[in-house]
């Protein structure tokens, strides 16, 4: 334990780092020394040690681990787990050691395969030589010797290359379990055992029944080991998405403390720290920009490929890449609370869940292996009783084939491996799927209801039109309006100022400024008197211009808000401000419609505004004037209507029933806060995330990027994943359902066809590799509308 004194400890009560030498107090708990920053912490700990040493991982405490661990970890008996927990699981280091282990395992299995294959060749040649007429006679005379030699030659293959099957089978057997090991061990073991008995006691077997199957035992071992090696390699790829994500975590951060810049490990960044990020570097944790401007590529988290412009006050997401300028930011979320850590955690959870479609397999798989064993026994009996001579040979061959061809792995792998790849893939597009059930339901959505504000639109007003009158140029008009509005805090005024900045208009200071509540602003600029505001302000100022009023009315038809500008008592022009539609909303709606999903819009706004937005994005059905608390009710009504359309509703309103009955399913897309009840009511709730809120409770699916494109991607990726699962399940079921009877010899009476156990072994190895490979195809999935949406 001497290293313990140099190791930093964490006060389990307050979470501070404590060096043992400078610790104010210490206690003994569960055989470990616990260090405290102050006497108060010790007092609290001693009063209730189990509370602070409790194991709830969500708790911002510490844990005492008394379990045996490798020596290096044992020293850190007490560790703070709240901050690093989710990422610690998926840290690059853990990944690396896991990759390493997997690579080692692969190499080992390949060695086992090469050895088995090397032995199989001469054994196979000896067995085949019997079929060469000129060799047959001399070989038959030495049959016993050859058999004996083969037995000795093949035993090491069974012991070394196939040892894990026998060990696994035995371990399973003692637990009253049976798995693939059981089948392989039974198959190869009985082939070898029977052949050895024949070799040792040849004369007890009548002429013609002295078949030996040493070749079967080694070749099956070789093939199955090869299959497992390929499978393990392919499996390691299926987790690639999440590994990629977790590797994006920066290792260090440049923190400014008391004016001193220094690099610290990312685990030592605390909330409130000021962090410096230079161009080209990754943002280490989540935070809010203090100083500096830059374009930040957030594609790893949001799936959005265009870098986002960031200014002081904007949020930055850990793991995004800073492109252009240096900036400092205040850390707001660190460790396990960062968006990235929560995404990784959420994806992991989803990958571990089970979609309803997998339940049938679960039911089947627990009965599968014993059933195959029974089938093998019955096959033997039937061949023995009714088969042609030599019955013993046919019985043995058919039984071996049945044992070896059955592949429980393909069945067991079919669902989870596709789910793993599919959920990971979705995360790459900024689509976080909560669990397998959400994925399955999303794949079957018929209707999607989109909230308007913040979902279809950007959720904040923007300057859309500038229309100048008389001698004013548009630039002049905009400049004057922006300068006048500069000091106003009204959202519409802010929209004008933002719009002017975006159009590179230089905004000076007004000489005088006055806000007129409910009307607009009044300012003196370059000696001129400028007023910007609504129609009421214009009539108060006695400025009237039929032309500007005509334009204003046209803007209103488009759902925009008009702002009049007057200079020195004369109308100068009209500006229009609107909650603009997101650039890709229309394309996303089109993509959904193309997939056969009906798209509706729901909003609290009036019909006129709602219609105009709906027109812009191509939606025809609009539910307008719906107050927020009524949205859930509207979704429910839609579900009822869908039920009525597809079949008679039995009045049950709970979603589980609907999903099972194959009713038309309704998805709702909203912001996750105001729309939470509606999201929960819908069969699938999509929350549009903004910035760093990634795990939204009410949502089944979170769209991190804030783009509607995510809805289309989510539906598409879910469909692709479900299709993949079905292919896998179908393939695995069909494979076993056809393979086992064929191996048992069902084709023999008609076609005289009996499968060699060697072929059976090859088929079984191929089937599980096929399932994994098919699932990995999902890695190449691309949402089909991506190009169109990006433009």
């Amino acid at each position, binding site marked *: 334990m001497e290293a313990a004194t140099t190791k930093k400890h964490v006060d389990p009560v307050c979470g501070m780092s404590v060096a043992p030498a400078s610790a104010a107090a210490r206690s003994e708990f569960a055989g470990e020394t616990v260090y405290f920053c102050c006497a108060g912490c010790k007092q609290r700990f001693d009063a209730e040690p189990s509370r602070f040493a*409790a194991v709830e991982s969500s708790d911002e405490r510490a844990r005492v681990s008394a379990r045996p661990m490798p020596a290096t970890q044992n020293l850190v008996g007490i560790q703070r787990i709240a901050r690093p927990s989710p990422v610690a699981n998926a840290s690059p280091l853990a990944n690396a050691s896991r990759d390493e282990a997997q690579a080692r395992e692969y190499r080992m299995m390949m060695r086992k395969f090469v050895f088995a294959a090397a032995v199989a060749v001469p054994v196979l040649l000896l067995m085949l030589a019997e079929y060469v007429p000129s060799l047959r006679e001399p070989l038959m005379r030495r049959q016993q010797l050859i058999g004996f030699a083969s037995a000795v030659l093949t035993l090491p293959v069974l012991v070394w290359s196939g040892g894990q099957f026998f060990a*696994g089978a035995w371990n399973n057997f003692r637990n009253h*379990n049976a798995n693939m090991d059981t089948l392989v061990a039974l198959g190869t073991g009985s082939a070898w055992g029977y052949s050895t008995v024949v070799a040792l006691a040849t004369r007890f077997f009548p002429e013609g029944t002295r078949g030996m199957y040493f070749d079967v035992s080694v070749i099956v071992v070789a093939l199955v080991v090869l299959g*497992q090696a390929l499978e393990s390699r392919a499996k390691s790829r299926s987790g690639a998405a999440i590994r990629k994500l977790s590797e994006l975590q920066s290792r260090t951060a440049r923190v400014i403390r008391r004016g001193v810049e220094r690099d610290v490990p990312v685990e030592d960044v605390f909330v409130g720290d000021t962090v410096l990020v230079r161009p080209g570097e990754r943002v280490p944790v989540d935070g809010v920009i203090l100083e500096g401007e830059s374009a930040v590529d957030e594609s790893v988290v949001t799936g959005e490929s265009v870098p986002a412009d960031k200014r002081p006050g904007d949020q930055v997401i850990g793991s995004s890449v800073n492109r252009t300028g240096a900036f400092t930011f205040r850390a707001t979320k660190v460790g396990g609370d960062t968006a990235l850590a929560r995404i990784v955690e959420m994806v992991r959870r989803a990958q571990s869940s089970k979609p309803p479609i997998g339940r049938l397999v679960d039911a089947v*798989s627990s009965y599968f292996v014993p059933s195959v064993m029974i089938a093998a026994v019955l096959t*033997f*009996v039937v061949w*023995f009783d009714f088969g042609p001579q030599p019955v013993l040979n046919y019985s043995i061959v058919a039984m071996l084939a049945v044992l070896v061809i059955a592949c429980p792995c393909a069945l067991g792998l079919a669902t989870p491996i596709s789910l793993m790849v599919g959920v990971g893939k979705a995360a790459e597009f900024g689509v976080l799927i909560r669990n397998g059930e959400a994925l399955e339901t999303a794949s079957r959505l018929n209707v999607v209801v989109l909230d308007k504000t913040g979902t279809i639109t950007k959720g904040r007003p923007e300057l859309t039109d500038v229309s100048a009158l008389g001698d004013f140029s548009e630039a002049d008009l905009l400049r004057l309006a922006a300068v006048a509005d500069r000091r106003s805090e009204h959202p519409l005024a802010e929209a004008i100022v933002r719009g002017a900045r975006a159009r590179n208009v230089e905004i000076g200071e007004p000489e005088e400024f006055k806000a007129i509540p409910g009307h607009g602003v009044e300012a003196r600029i370059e000696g001129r008197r400028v007023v910007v505001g609504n129609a009421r302000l214009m009539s108060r100022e006695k400025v009237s211009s039929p032309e500007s009023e005509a334009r204003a009315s046209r803007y209103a038809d488009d759902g925009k808000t008009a702002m009049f500008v007057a200079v020195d008592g004369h109308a100068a022009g009209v500006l229009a401000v609107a909650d603009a539609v997101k650039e890709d909303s229309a394309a996303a709606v089109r993509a959904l419609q193309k997939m056969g999903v009906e798209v509706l819009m729901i909003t609290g706004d009036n019909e006129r505004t709602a219609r105009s937005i709906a027109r812009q994005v191509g939606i025809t059905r609009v539910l307008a004037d719906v107050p927020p608390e009524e949205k859930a009710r509207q979704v429910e009504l839609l579900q009822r209507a869908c039920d009525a359309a597809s079949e008679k509703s039995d009045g049950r309103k709970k979603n589980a029933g609907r999903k099972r009955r194959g009713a038309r399913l309704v998805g709702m897309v909203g912001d996750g806060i105001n729309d939470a009840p509606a999201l929960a009511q819908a069969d699938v709730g999509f929350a549009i995330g903004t910035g760093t809120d990634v795990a939204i409770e009410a949502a089944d699916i979170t769209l991190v990027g804030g783009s509607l494109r995510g809805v289309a991607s989510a539906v598409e990726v879910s469909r692709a994943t479900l299709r993949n699962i079905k292919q896998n399940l179908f393939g695995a079921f069909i494979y076993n359902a056809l393979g086992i009877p064929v191996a048992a010899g069902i084709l023999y009476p008609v076609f005289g066809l009996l499968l060699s156990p060697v072929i059976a072994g090859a088929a079984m190895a191929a089937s599980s590799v096929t399932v994994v490979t098919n699932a990995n195809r999902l890695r190449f999935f691309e949402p089909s509308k991506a190009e169109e949406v990006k433009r």
Partner: protein
Amino acid sequence: MNAAQLAVTIAGLAVVAWIVRYFWFWKGETVKAQAEGRGAQVVDVTVKGGYQPASIMVRAGRPVRLNFTRREASTCGEEVVLPSFGKRAHLPQDETVSVEVVPAEPGEYEFTCGMNMYRGKLIAE
């Protein structure tokens, strides 16, 4: 049907009956989790051809810590999944990996290997 055929048939059916009884009609023993004061209820689970113990009695509403140790080279058990809790853990051979869950409601919560071949359950009451 000659004597040999009769013998093989009877033996075969006997084996079938035995398989059914041994694999399907076997009930493992249930182990009760040890509670550590107000902390978690802790159970050590060995993964070796299955879970030992495979049936664990716990109190609902309190955290449960399952210390899994995989004591076999076979890769079947290398992944343990607790679907009701959305937890999945990789179990390197001969290393103890703790999985912590809180069964909020009384009931049965399954845990299985990655391919659903090994099965165990928490019985919360």
